[in-house]
């Protein structure tokens, strides 16, 4: 009986999150507009080769969209005083976190797919391995959405603080993850830093799937992304349990 009950809770929470939080201004701003601006700022009008850089751009899009929903939900619910009620429904804190992660992941996949499909009309983007491409989408949004949930956990009941904090973490990541400077051209401390960023592996995996060239083997990328997701979710759970009473 536990499994279907728990599953139902996650599904209902996910649906609630989708309905309530996809259209919140911070999500639209930092999840949707921001990566598009970055794209125009860095790629358009320069001599960068769009086709070569497209996998990295797609990874960035996925990263921003998927990680923008998670940070908002719990602080928002705590501020609006709906969190305690949510917790007294037949759900656990774990189902709430997972519901937040899934909502973020669905947002990420949806928007990135749209961007990818739209781009088909403008640039000749090749895909060398459909399987890897799909895997990159799934593992990528999962890990980025998990990062989103983790970013929400230290906060209590102030959405603005969380948005600032999460952007403070998210923005630097895009500069050290081989998006604007390919990994192969990085060296020294820059490269060491890149190894620490989860986004690096996603960029690498998209490169492997679309152009067939990657720094790590795709298997390594996949394992890293899967491992990162698990670690992020567990960490989010630990911190959120500790912070439970804050702003209840």
């Amino acid at each position, binding site marked *: 009986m*536990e499994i279907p009950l728990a599953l139902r809770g996650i599904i209902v929470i996910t649906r609630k999150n989708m309905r309530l939080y996809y259209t919140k201004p911070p999500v639209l701003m930092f999840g949707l507009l921001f990566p598009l601006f970055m794209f125009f700022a860095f790629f358009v009008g320069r001599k960068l080769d769009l086709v070569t850089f497209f996998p990295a751009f797609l990874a960035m899009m996925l990263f921003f969209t998927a990680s923008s929903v998670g940070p908002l939900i719990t602080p928002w619910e705590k501020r609006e005083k709906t969190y305690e*009620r949510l917790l007294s429904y037949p759900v656990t804190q774990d189902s709430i976190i997972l519901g937040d992660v899934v909502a973020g992941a669905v947002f990420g996949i949806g928007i990135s797919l749209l961007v990818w499909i739209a781009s088909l009309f403008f640039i000749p983007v090749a895909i060398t391995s459909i399987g890897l491409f799909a895997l990159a989408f799934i593992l990528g949004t999962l890990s980025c959405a998990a990062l989103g949930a983790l970013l929400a956990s230290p906060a209590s009941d102030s959405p603005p603080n969380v948005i600032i904090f999460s952007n403070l973490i998210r923005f630097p990541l895009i500069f050290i993850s081989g998006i604007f400077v390919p990994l192969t051209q990085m060296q020294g401390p820059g490269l060491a830093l890149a190894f620490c960023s989860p986004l690096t592996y996603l960029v690498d995996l998209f490169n492997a799937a679309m152009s067939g060239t990657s720094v790590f083997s795709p298997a390594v990328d996949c394992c890293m992304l899967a491992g990162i997701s698990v670690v992020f979710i567990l960490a989010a759970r630990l911190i959120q349990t500790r912070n439970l009473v804050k702003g*209840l």
Partner: protein
Amino acid sequence: MNAIEASHLIKRFGSVTAVNDVSLTVCEGEIFGFLGPNGTGKTTTMRQLTGVLTPDSGAVRINGIDIHRHPLEAKMQMGVIPENSTVYGDLSAEQNLSLSGQMYGMPRADRDKRIDEFFSRMGLSEKRKLPVRGFSKGMKQRVSIACAIIHRPPLLLLDEPTSGLDVQSRRLVIDTIRDMNEQGSTIFLTTHNIEEANTLCQTVCILNKGKIVAQDSPERLKKMFNTTQSVEVSFDRPVTRDLFAAEGILRAESCGDKWKIFTDNPDQVLKYLVGRAERESITITSLTTSGPSLEEAFVRITECA
């Protein structure tokens, strides 16, 4: 079986022990009142009963199900209205109810039927599609209660459901509680309104500084303190305090347009008042006697502890 069985609950926040070894039993089918001064741990206790907080030690069983081992099954048994609860302001009343029904796994047809029932009962039909954000406090609380009872829970826990409501909304809430109880639900009611507890509850539990200081039926609690009784009287014209200088009258207070007389012998006082009014040809416009009040008992219990 007991609806709620809590044993030796302890909860600390840093150095503050909010709930200190609380054990309580709520029998099936009763309305259980949970009283106590501000900040004595009522909400903290209730959060542990509803599985929102995990106690530092102690256990809670809901209809025999340990809530910390099987939280989902235990939570399926109850409807909860937390203290500062609100429903989702961005959703309409109808969407809120529907969400709540989904949380409890109600099939769609069942849900829709219940929702229609509510709107005809709670008198919000014309607002069912509007976002709850624009509702008044009383309307929000109605939606909130409807969300908690949509699945007809065998156990309903409410934390100060009537605070800040006007008479109509308050009555509606109380009537809903009564109805639910008549249909077999057990009610756990936290309140500051002692009169409410007095008229509604079969058992009253008084908490003070994190500990239970009394638990009994309201009538027996009142008798525990042989509290003085009072007589309230009003006349057709103003009288002075001298009128109440008589044997058996302990104290007389003027309250608005009437006098409240404290006594331990109401019989003697009534006879005296009637005789005196007759002699001085003053008309008595109203006369009531009241027994020892639960409020008095409450004050004494929480004072001495």
